């Protein structure tokens, strides 16, 4: 120890000089300084010692202010503690080594997160200094809260008049690029060299094309409460918040894909067609459906409707009748002969063959025809429709409906060749010879699976789908008096119900599953029972018995369980318990199989069970040019899946033929939350689900007449109106058709931008407190209880009332307006202990505006304390009292309630010392300022810390209000704490100055405190390599030692702590140094 000095203001210039002099005079090689936190003055002293020629890393600072004197109640103990710490510091300093940081140049671009007044100020200052700026704004426009105000305190100048010149300057500034609907995802790098990923949600409207004409919104069928107007009026998803908004173009609010559409295998835009139906636009609705489902009438009758089970309206009352509505549309079109072909591309000279005229094949043919291909469909049977025709019975799907929809396809120049069996009458080589360049195989599963038990070949035992096919083809089917149907699925039910209609006296349906396990839909099973079918559960077939080759009965054993613990089909039986059912006909409907011999000749890969293997995206088989889909690849599936695959194959074939390769398939939209939210609940119109009119069971068993008779126009429209518009914009395309400059693209998807910047200003601003957390104030219950932000909109000329202050309940001019202060501020029980700083002034401003609108009105303000600290603020408040005659009542409001129909505000007049009640026409809640709701995710993305409320922490509450503890990231405006506009602007300027300083210096010094590896010690265990979060450690396989990349290393020391042989140490924090410090402290 060469010298020890005590000086009161060591950080002052004379103090620093003391140090410099000592170094010079005494030739010191280490300096220890004990005072305040190194977080505050370490840089100061490092600079001081370097000025004297000493390496700054030979300096050590000990914190005895924040950690000792300020927090200890016992001065002696504090002194002991300080001494220990100083001893530790000295011991450590001895081990310090001179270190030198490298320099790195600064990327002179800035990113401003948040486009409120603070962010705008910062952006303009930096841009005007000649640097490039990215402005990342979450909403569709910039301007922040100020864009919503009418006037500003204390001067009452018009908010728009002072803001819009700034926003438009940002909008047209050559150095500023505004990214709207964008949010920061994450950040890497360091000061001067950040890499930021920004997620931009689609606007759907191109800012360079939209002229702002507004034609689009006139045709938009959807109305949603406007977020900008805080729900006081509605808007169309395509709109812009106000005429002077920047960017001055329209944009579309879309949440994402609604669950109905996400659940539909074909991806039909359900919300879109339901909305259009609700608006009576039936033709447009049908066109939308046909983008993904060519057969509205068929689908509307037989679809399994997974959409409805996902429909969010189901969480309110009952799902929308999506399927019945589709049927209505198809039928309506036929009734009014409105069908016309969709717009078709010019005919190409390429031929495609489709094998199988089931829904899969027909769908492929339809979409291929639209693309302009010459399509021929080859079909084995004499009829078209596949299982629709020869499976599903007439009473569910009349043949005529199939014929009509097939006719539509025929009219699109699709050729049908029936009675041609592929593999027999025509082979794949024949097709190639005939010039077909691609083949789509959709041949379904048409072989009845057999049970493989005794007596199955007896006369009268028939396959289930064989029976249905024979009935459909009007072949002779012998159905006796007593019929047994084996199987528990939908096919079995169809067979049983067909048997009833063919005159069987008794129909017994027997299946393995218990009643609640049956795969058939409950609704169908229920209808079968209504029609007299007897269901026997948990029985497995053992054998058929008969005489003279004719079946006379079936014997069953008890099935004890169907599925094993993994849910796989593995039935177990009790062979001792036997049941016999007498019968003269038995139908076996236990499954379907493919024609295996045909497929095995094709030389393509097959899965066990004979299914064709295809690529999941493109449906290509292993043979080039041959695609397959539907039941033959999926196993027994559904109509809508077959249609979906038909379309998917058509797209893939188009890509194959047009681009030779397998191009990327269309990217999917992000699905929205399946859980109903409050906004959706509020949008639910009180309409009950329309029930489908049906024939009664007695009449329906008499014939194959359709059971359901369809919706009326009114029913369909009211169903359409039940839709909650879960995705907001329904992508109906109405606006697209209307937009002259073709500015709208509904297929836009999210994008990720990777930006490289040197400095970041965080100016994400404030939110307002959610007033519904005070149930005693009636917000949300009484329309005339509003927040102060809503009041701003009521005054604003572009607001919901065109600038007249009218109360929301009945549009009358309010006489008594009561302002309630400190709503969500100064309230620990509500989690916000702080004063929001601006709301006292806001109320004074708002009551003044109110009085200017209605000079005879009376304003009351319930306050706890009036906080008017600011230039001209107190004077402004006095004006409100003296000139506007506002009555200020000291006391926090206890309750807002309705007494005999009148809104009453109750609180204590604590200066007069008694409770008071005021009859109010309008109650304005002065909601406090809060951090943004997503503050945690911003903090995480940018690695910032927040205070306990969620405001971002500044570097120092007094001396570093615009900096953060992360060099290169700065704060401005409400994001750091409640503020008014002047302060936000000032801080925006301060943040800009910080960034500009960085840019003008042009270089940053990289901390030398990074990891260092002692290769001699490293044993090559690789423990460290996997730990580094920055991939700074690589492994040298030749020398079998680790190696560290200084540029990537951040100096966290994780590797050092983990290295079992202590081969790594972080410079300036080496084990020697820490050990010495520990020893010093505890000596």
């Amino acid at each position, binding site marked *: 120890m060469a010298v020890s000095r005590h000086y009161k203001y060591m950080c002052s210039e004379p103090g620093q000089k003391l140090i410099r002099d000592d170094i010079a005079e005494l030739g010191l090689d280490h300096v220890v300084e004990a005072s305040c936190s190194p977080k505050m003055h370490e840089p100061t002293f490092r600079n001081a010692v370097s000025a004297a020629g000493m390496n700054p890393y030979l300096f050590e600072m000990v914190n005895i202010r924040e950690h000792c004197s300020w927090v200890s109640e016992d001065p002696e103990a504090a002194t002991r503690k300080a001494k220990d710490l100083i001893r530790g510091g000295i011991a450590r300093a001895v081990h310090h080594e001179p270190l030198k940081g490298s320099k790195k140049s600064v990327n002179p671009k800035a990113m401003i997160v948040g486009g409120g007044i603070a962010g705008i100020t910062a952006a303009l200052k930096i841009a005007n200094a000649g640097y490039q700026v990215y402005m990342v704004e979450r909403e569709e426009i910039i301007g922040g809260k100020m864009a919503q105000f009418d006037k500003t305190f204390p001067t009452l100048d018009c908010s728009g008049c002072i803001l819009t010149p700034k926003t438009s300057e940002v909008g047209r500034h050559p150095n500023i690029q505004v990214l709207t609907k964008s949010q920061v995802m994450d950040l890497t790098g360091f000061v001067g060299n950040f890499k930021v990923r920004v997620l931009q949600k689609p606007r759907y409207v191109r800012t360079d094309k939209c002229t702002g004409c507004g034609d689009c919104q006139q045709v938009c069928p959807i109305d949603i409460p406007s977020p900008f107007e805080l729900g006081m009026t509605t808007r169309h998803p395509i709109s812009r918040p106000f005429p002077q908004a920047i960017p001055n173009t329209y944009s579309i609010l879309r949440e994402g894909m609604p669950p109905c559409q996400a659940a539909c295998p074909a991806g039909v835009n359900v919300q879109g067609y339901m909305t259009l139906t609700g608006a009576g636009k039936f033709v447009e609705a049908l066109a939308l459906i046909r983008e993904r489902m060519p057969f509205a009438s068929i689908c509307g009758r037989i679809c399994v409707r997974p959409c409805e089970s996902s429909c969010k309206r189901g969480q309110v009352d009952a799902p929308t009748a999506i399927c019945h509505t589709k049927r209505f549309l198809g039928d309506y079109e036929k009734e009014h002969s409105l069908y016309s072909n969709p717009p078709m591309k010019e005919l190409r000279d390429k031929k495609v063959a489709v094998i199988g005229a089931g829904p899969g094949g027909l769908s492929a043919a339809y979409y291929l025809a639209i693309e302009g291909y010459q399509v021929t469909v080859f079909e084995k049977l004499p009829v078209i429709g596949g299982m629709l025709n020869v499976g599903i019975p007439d009473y569910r799907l009349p043949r005529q409906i199939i014929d009509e929809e097939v006719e539509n396809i025929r009219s699109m120049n699709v050729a049908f060749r029936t009675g041609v069996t592929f593999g027999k009458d025509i082979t794949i080589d024949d097709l190639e010879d005939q010039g077909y360049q691609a083949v789509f195989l959709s041949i379904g599963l048409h072989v009845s699976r057999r049970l493989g038990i005794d007596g199955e070949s007896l006369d009268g035992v028939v396959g289930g789908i064989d029976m249905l096919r024979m009935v459909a083809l009007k072949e002779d089917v012998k159905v006796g008096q007593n019929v047994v149907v084996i199987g528990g699925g939908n096919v079995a039910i169809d067979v049983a119900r067909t048997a009833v209609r063919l005159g069987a006296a008794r129909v017994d349906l027997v299946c393995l599953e218990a009643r609640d396990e049956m795969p058939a839909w409950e609704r169908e099973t229920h209808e079968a029972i209504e029609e007299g079918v007897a269901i026997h559960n948990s029985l497995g077939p053992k054998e058929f018995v008969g005489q003279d080759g004719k079946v006379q009965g079936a014997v069953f054993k008890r099935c004890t369980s169907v599925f094993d613990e993994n849910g796989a089909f593995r039935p177990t039986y009790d062979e001792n318990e036997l049941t016999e059912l007498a019968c003269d006909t038995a139908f076996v409907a236990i499954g379907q199989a493919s024609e295996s011999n045909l497929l095995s000749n094709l030389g393509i890969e097959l899965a066990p069970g004979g299914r064709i293997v295809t690529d999941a995206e493109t449906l290509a088989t292993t043979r080039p040019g041959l695609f397959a889909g539907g039941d033959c690849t999926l196993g027994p599936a559904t109509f809508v899946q077959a249609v979906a695959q038909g379309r998917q194959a058509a797209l893939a074939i188009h890509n194959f033929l047009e681009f030779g390769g397998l191009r990327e398939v269309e990217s999917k939209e992000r699905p929205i939350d399946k859980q109903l939210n409050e906004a959706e609940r509020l949008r639910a119109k009180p309409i009950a689900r329309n029930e489908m009119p049906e024939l009664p069971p007695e009449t329906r068993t008499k014939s194959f007449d359709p059971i359901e008779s369809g919706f009326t126009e009114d029913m369909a429209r009211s169903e359409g109106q039940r839709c909650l518009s879960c995705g907001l914009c329904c992508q109906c395309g109405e606006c697209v058709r209307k937009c002259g400059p073709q500015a709208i693209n509904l297929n836009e998807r999210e994008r990720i931008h990777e930006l490289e910047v040197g400095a970041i200003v965080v100016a994400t601003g404030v939110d307002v407190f959610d007033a519904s957390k005070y149930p005693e104030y009636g917000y949300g219950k009484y329309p005339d209880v509003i927040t102060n932000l809503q009041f701003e909109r009521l005054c604003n000329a572009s607001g919901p009332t065109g600038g007249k202050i009218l109360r929301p309940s009945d549009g009358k001019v309010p006489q008594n307006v009561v302002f309630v202060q400190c709503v969500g501020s*100064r309230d620990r029980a509500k989690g916000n202990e702080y004063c929001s700083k601006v709301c006292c002034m806001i109320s004074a401003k708002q009551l003044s505006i109110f009085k200017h609108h209605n000079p005879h009105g009376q304003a009351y303000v319930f306050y706890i304390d009036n906080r008017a600290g600011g230039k001209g603020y107190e004077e402004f408040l006095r004006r409100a009292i003296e000139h506007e005659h506002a009555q200020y009542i000291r006391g926090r*409001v*206890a*309750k807002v309630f309705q007494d005999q129909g009148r809104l009453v505000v109750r*609180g204590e007049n*604590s200066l007069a010392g*008694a409770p008071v009640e005021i009859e109010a026409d309008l109650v304005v809640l002065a909601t406090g300022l809060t951090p943004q709701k997503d503050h945690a995710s911003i903090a995480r993305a940018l690695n910032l810390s927040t205070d306990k409320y969620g405001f971002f922490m500044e570097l120092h509450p007094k001396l570093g209000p615009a900096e953060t503890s992360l060099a290169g990231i700065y704060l401005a405006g409400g994001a750091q704490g409640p503020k008014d506009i002047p302060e936000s602007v000032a801080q925006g300027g301060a943040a800009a100055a910080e960034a500009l300083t960085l840019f003008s210096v042009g270089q940053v010094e990289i901390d030398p405190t990074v990891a260092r590896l002692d290769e001699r010690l490293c044993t090559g265990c690789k423990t460290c390599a996997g730990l580094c979060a920055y991939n700074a450690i690589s492994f040298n396989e030749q020398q079998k030692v680790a190696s560290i990349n200084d540029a990537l290393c951040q100096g966290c020391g994780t590797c050092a702590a983990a290295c079992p042989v202590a081969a790594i140490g972080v410079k300036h924090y080496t084990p020697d140094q820490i050990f010495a410090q520990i020893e010093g402290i505890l000596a």
Partner: protein
Amino acid sequence: MFRLTGALSEQEFLHHVVQRSGQNLLECLQCGKCTGGCPIASEKVSGPRRLIAEILSGMRNEALKNPTWWYCVSCGTCMTRCPVDINMYQVATALCELAQEGGIAPSERDIHLFEELFLKSVEKYGRVKELRTVAAYNVITKNPLKDMDKAVTLMRKGAFSPLEILSGWAKDRKVSRIFALARRTSEGGHE
């Protein structure tokens, strides 16, 4: 007039109340939300905020004579809304005990009388005999016929039986003993 000298004893009363009631009155913002919603607050009965203000400024006598805590029906409304969760009826109990110990006469005699009679009934019979308590109250307050007409109507309807006033009941010695023990411990004061 109240002159403050900075003597330690100025805070004493506040500390007593805080300790007994378990309510940290120092947190009170004096916002008045409690009084605004308090059913019994009026021009004459100050309500909780003012009472707390008195305690905070060491106005012991004023606080102990403030009618608020006598009136308090422990409805809990104040606490439900208070931004710092101050439970007023715990403060009322503390003041009641302190007044008793300090020999300060109840400022609300009627309320006190009723409550005494009520507890007497409980002490003796283990349960409160409502009609008898009411009758006793009316007799002592020299208003024996108060609400008589209503009583008669109800009696006729069979809502209660007049015999209840007259008939004798069993005493609940266990409860009497609890009273005795509780009094003894309470007199020992709170720690």
